[in-house]
């Protein structure tokens, strides 16, 4: 059996699967059930001065029958008394000494940070996560993403936390910025042991057209909320990878955003995350999803011959480069496997209206398998994306006689480029 033991910024857990700070980590009783189900760690629902929440709080995108493909919330931090939270943290650590409990925090003044950190450490926390990410409500009060969007403030508060803390400090970053790197670097300068990302993305999930009120509706009004769930995964993957390959960054990343199963988790880790956190998928389906995450990751590691997480963490990062370093002479064309094609011709309409007009009907009107004009096909893979049959359309490399050449090679060294296709 591969070893799934995870170490993120010296916070050790039996596996790399943590619950993100959110409703699934609201209380000790919940977190204990989650640990029983197999979760390796949990980031406690953000503690601070308890707030008052609204109803309703959540909205979701339903796409072709599946609910919650994208999810949004206008919930704030914990609404439970701090004493209760700290008592429960101590109970959880006592019953589950091997599982990681990270306490998420959000307060304002230096004094408040000092006090809440001391109480978290007293309660037995294994690490702290500074919530600089919440994009609604709290930022109007100068906290959450208001901090995460200002590298100077981020750095200052992080350094306070470092000063007061004897346990590892993670900074949870907001994706509501143009470029994530200065914010990761600010946390690092402040002394963070690691960063967590992403928090939710500013959003309006929809509008109630009968009432003319955006959703989620609170009486006669609504506000912008935080977007998360499967739909945000590409954004999160990019931000994680952008920091992972940033020279001079080099501190551990706890990857979050749209993770639904073991495969998603592994994708985050190969792009540089030391571990992962999950919120929405657990809200939608329960703690039980972790069984497949553990098992699927283990099987994949066994197939690949990986013994431990470090054997593959970050292994796809080197292949993430600048556009200017991609090989322009690498050429592919679409090939349709006639034996599995079901004749829906979605590839044809997509190519005709959305790409390069090079998939055509078969000359035989009785045959519904389309034909690719390989001389015109630019290898964009739109057809492969719309094809409902896995493996039916393959993008096959073409030997065109040109040696590899990137845009940078071409501009700076005059390297020869293959003739353009589909550009008349």
């Amino acid at each position, binding site marked *: 059996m591969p070893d799934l033991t995870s170490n993120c910024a010296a916070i050790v857990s039996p596996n790399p699967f943590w619950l993100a700070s959110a409703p699934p980590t609201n209380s000790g009783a919940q977190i204990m059930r989650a640990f029983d189900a197999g979760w390796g760690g949990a980031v406690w629902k953000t503690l601070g001065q308890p707030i008052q929440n609204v109803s309703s709080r959540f909205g979701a995108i339903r796409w072709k029958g599946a609910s919650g493909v994208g999810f949004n919330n206008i919930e704030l931090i914990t609404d439970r008394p701090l004493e209760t939270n700290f008592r429960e943290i101590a109970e959880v650590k006592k019953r589950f000494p091997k599982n990681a409990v990270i306490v998420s925090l959000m307060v304002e003044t230096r004094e408040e940070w000092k006090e809440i950190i001391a109480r978290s450490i007293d309660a037995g926390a294994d690490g702290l996560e500074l919530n600089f990410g919440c994009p609604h409500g709290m930022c109007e009060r100068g906290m959450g993403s208001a901090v995460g969007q200002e590298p100077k403030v981020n750095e200052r508060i992080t350094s306070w936390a470092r000063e007061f803390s004897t346990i590892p400090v993670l900074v949870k970053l907001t994706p509501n910025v143009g470029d994530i790197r200065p914010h990761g670097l600010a946390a690092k300068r402040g002394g963070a042991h690691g960063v967590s990302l992403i928090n939710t993305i500013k959003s309006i999930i929809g509008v109630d057209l009968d009432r003319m009120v955006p959703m989620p509706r609170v009486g006669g009004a609504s506000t912008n909320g935080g977007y998360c769930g499967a739909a945000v995964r590409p954004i999160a993957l990019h931000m994680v990878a952008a920091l992972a390959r940033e020279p001079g960054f080099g501190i551990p990343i706890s990857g979050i955003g749209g993770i639904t*199963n*073991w*495969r998603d988790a592994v994708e985050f880790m190969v792009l540089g995350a030391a571990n992962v956190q999950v919120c929405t998928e657990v809200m939608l*389906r*329960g703690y*039980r*999803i972790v*069984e*497949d995450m553990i*098992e*699927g990751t283990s*099987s994949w590691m066994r197939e690949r011959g990986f013994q431990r997480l470090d054997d593959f963490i970050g292994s796809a990062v080197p292949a993430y480069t600048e556009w200017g370093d991609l090989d322009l002479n690498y050429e592919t064309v679409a090939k349709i496997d006639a034996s599995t094609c079901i004749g829906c011709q979605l590839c044809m309409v997509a190519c005709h209206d959305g790409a390069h007009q090079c998939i055509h009907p078969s000359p035989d009107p009785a045959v519904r398998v389309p034909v690719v004009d390989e001389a015109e096909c630019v290898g964009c893979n739109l057809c492969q994306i719309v094809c*409902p*049959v*896995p*493996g039916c359309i393959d993008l096959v490399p073409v030997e065109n006689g040109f040696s590899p050449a990137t845009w940078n090679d071409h501009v700076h060294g005059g390297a020869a480029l293959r003739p353009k296709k589909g550009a008349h």
Partner: protein
Amino acid sequence: MEPLPEDRAEAVFEDYKLPYGDAQAVVEATRCLYCFDAPCIKACPTGIDIPEFIRKIATGNVEGSARTIFSSNILGMSCARVCPVEVLCVGDCVYNHLEVPPIQIGRLQRYATDKAYAAGWRFFEAGPDTGRSVGLIGAGPASLAAAHELRRMGHRVVIYERRDVLGGLNSTGVAPYKMKSDRALDEVAWVLGIGGVEVRTGVRVPEDVSYDALERAHDAVFIGVGLGADRLLALPGADLAGVRGAVAWIEEMKLGPTVAPRRAVVIGGGNTAVDAVRELVGVGVAEVTLAYRGDESRMSGYAHEWDAAKKSGVRALWSATPTAFLPGPGGAVAGVRFTRPDGVVDVPADLVLLAIGQEKLGDRFAALDGITIDGGTIVVSTGGATGRPRWYAGGDCANGGKEVVNAVAEGRDAARAIHLALTGGS
């Protein structure tokens, strides 16, 4: 085990529920709602965690999916094919309430378990030897499930089987359009692959090994003998050639060649009768009639199976009580005489199959003090305990005749009860 003959009549049958390819399986698995405390689980006698195994197919974790199935039901491969899912798991899928087609749980289970067999994934090992030994009578689904569970817990296991073919009715009785006998034997080999199960074939209990001998050799005994021979009708002409028990004919058709007659009549209205008529059509009998003493609404055979039989061209004769088998030339049967509300009818036939139930075998255990028999069925309490210490029973001989999946559940649960009894609760 001897290899099965190549020229088995069952070879002509195609699967009536085709296997899923990867794309189909993922599409169907993605449709499952992953219900909590799911009704489909409750409807499965072995309690497979159906939402979990289906979700794992959707995430590409097929190995984990198979593990989930086999950890509740080690005969999950055959159950995927032979279970009457329409009245079990699939019948209780919540999609039925939405009037949307329910999830094809059996086909998804087949997908995952077939992959496990093809890939050679193994999930279970024999436990450390406890030095205790259990004797199992019969090598049907009940005993096989019990044997596997007992080996996991480290007990020694000996199976006594009167036939040469292992697997019980899964090998000799199940309709070949669900599963053929070679696939049933693949499963036997897979289950016994846990190692350490001693199988003695051609041994009939108690004729060849006495109850005393079993009690001396073992710390506990499990009875999994299933049901007995077909019940026959004591009517004039009952000994004419071509008047046969349906289960006996099915066994012959599955395990060897058969000569298809021109016209056949099957007497009965249960599942064996419904299987038999479809099988007769399949092996090439031109005219097949099902004759039942009640009407269609009183048939005990599953409606979905009977609908399929009707589609294949089977004729039905309702409210028909047989009174005689009619002789033809050379001592062979030529037809059956029925009385019906509107008079007497003679139906010509060269083969008459009686599918009116099987004998119960419980009585052969009546000699054992403490074991209670009720109408031929062995009376058991939870965990399969009989009234005699160290004797357990499960499957058709203890439930009166249900499905493979019930036999598996009862065999597994008896093994767990035996384990508790032998280890004093550890």
